């Protein structure tokens, strides 16, 4: 789940500048779960922009806001509403905003900030457990990620700031290495923690990443 957070409404107005009419794009997937781009939020944004004197020409909530082909299809289905707008405001993640970019020539703006890949802990509560590093070490760490859940991303054990199993940087968060130690101890696999972890390859995939599955490549 890509976790997004709404920008302050004032900064959204600033993005739009003098655009008098806006077409809104939500997302039926992550941004709906995050309550940043679902039906309710799109409706609320419509009301707020209208109150500011902006004309909302219409909206679309693609099933998945980063599915570029779907977004383009949805844009074609709402061609007239889109045409009438001077700007497109996307209530999704950065990927969704750029999917919209691919689907129209109009100026496109983000309504949200994109925070992290998050696990849904319960309704409205998200926690970052994977940093998408491309070089997974969970086999060595009892399936608790130190790259993500240790503030410093330390690979070889806790720093001196571990505090009764909490992180010195944020006492509300668990020290990843305490969790790893406890899990590996339970499994009888503390030897894994004792094994030296070499410096990480931070470039397993050249940025920006692109993966094309072999079987989907043309001519094969």
């Amino acid at each position: 789940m890509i976790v997004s957070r709404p920008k302050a409404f004032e900064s959204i107005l600033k993005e739009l500048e003098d655009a008098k009419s806006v077409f809104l794009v939500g997302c039926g997937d992550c941004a709906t779960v995050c309550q940043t781009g679902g039906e309710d939020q799109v409706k609320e944004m419509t009301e707020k922009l209208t109150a500011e004197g902006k004309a909302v020409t219409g909206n679309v909530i693609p099933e998945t806001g980063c599915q570029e082909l779907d977004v383009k299809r949805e844009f074609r289905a709402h061609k007239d509403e889109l045409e009438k707008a001077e700007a497109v405001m996307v209530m999704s993640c950065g990927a969704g905003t750029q999917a919209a970019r691919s689907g129209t020539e109009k100026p496109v703006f983000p309504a949200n900030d994109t925070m992290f890949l998050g696990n849904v802990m319960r309704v409205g509560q998200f926690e970052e457990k994977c940093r998408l590093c491309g070089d997974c070490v969970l086999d060595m760490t009892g399936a608790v990620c130190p790259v993500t859940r240790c503030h410093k991303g330390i690979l070889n054990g806790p720093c001196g700031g571990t505090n009764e199993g909490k992180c010195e940087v944020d006492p509300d968060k668990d020290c990843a290495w305490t969790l790893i130690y406890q899990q590996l101890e339970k499994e009888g696999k503390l030897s894994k923690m004792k094994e030296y972890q070499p410096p990480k390859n931070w470039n397993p995939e050249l940025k920006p990443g692109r993966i094309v599955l072999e079987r989907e490549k043309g001519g094969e």
Partner: protein
Amino acid sequence: MSVEAVWKELNIKHAKPSIEEVLASGKFLVSGEIGPPKGPDVEEVIHHIDLMKDKVHSMNITDNQSSVMRYPSLATALMILERGGEPNLQVTCRDRNRMSLENELLFAYTRGVRSVLCLTGDSVPVGDHKDAKSVFDLESVQLLNMMRTMEEGNDLGGNEMNAPVKFFKGAIVTPEASPIEPQLIKFEKKVEAGAQWIQTQAIYDMDNFAEFMKTARKYPVKLQAGLVLLTSAGMAKYMNANVPGVKVPQDLIDEMAASEKGKAIDTGIRIMARHIKRIREENLADGVHIMAIGKEAVVPRILEEAELDINAL
């Protein structure tokens, strides 16, 4: 060209024995700590270096300590050498990636730095540049290993350098960390990664420390007890509440609180001197590392009260 020839060419002199030499001779290693200044005025730091350089074997130089941007650690280390002291360069992984760590160590080596203390570093948001990007490309154990690679004549990219480097490599441990077991595993990994001597985080409870040393003595490394000067009862309470891994026992807080008005620092000096004496008498550690944060000028007094004269060892 050998590094000795490089030092001669650059007119670099070592007035004092290295940390390695002090420890090898079996002497009790006494070090102090220099916090570089916030800005380019080095008058005070020079004063502190001059006060300490003949009273301690070496001086640690902190590296953007507590993630607060300061005058460079390496520049201060060179200043210590120029003034006839022995620097122990602290290097953290917070602000530089592996390439930058490597080339800084090459610079340090050719300019006469012989000891390096390897640390991961504090996190960026605790400091004064909260929006800065933290690096942590490596961490302390990997930094130690990187130095070993460089001592074999290679860099971390797998390329051969035109000559190897050589340093005496240090690391730290937090004896009062809670839980302690994961900390001990890391301690072991640091030793395996090439740490040749260890400095501890601040310790105050000597009985706990003696207990910790029973474990630490199993490893083939020398160890200095880290001592932070208490300047008030409030400071002790603050550290207990805010610095993980630092525990000041209640009896010491009471002792500080009972100080005559304006004389708390004298009590702090007395406590540290007492601890130094006990560490020496009971052979609890191979030395002490004195951190008189912001009060560097009293280090000679602490040593006097502890009856510790390095020139008489």
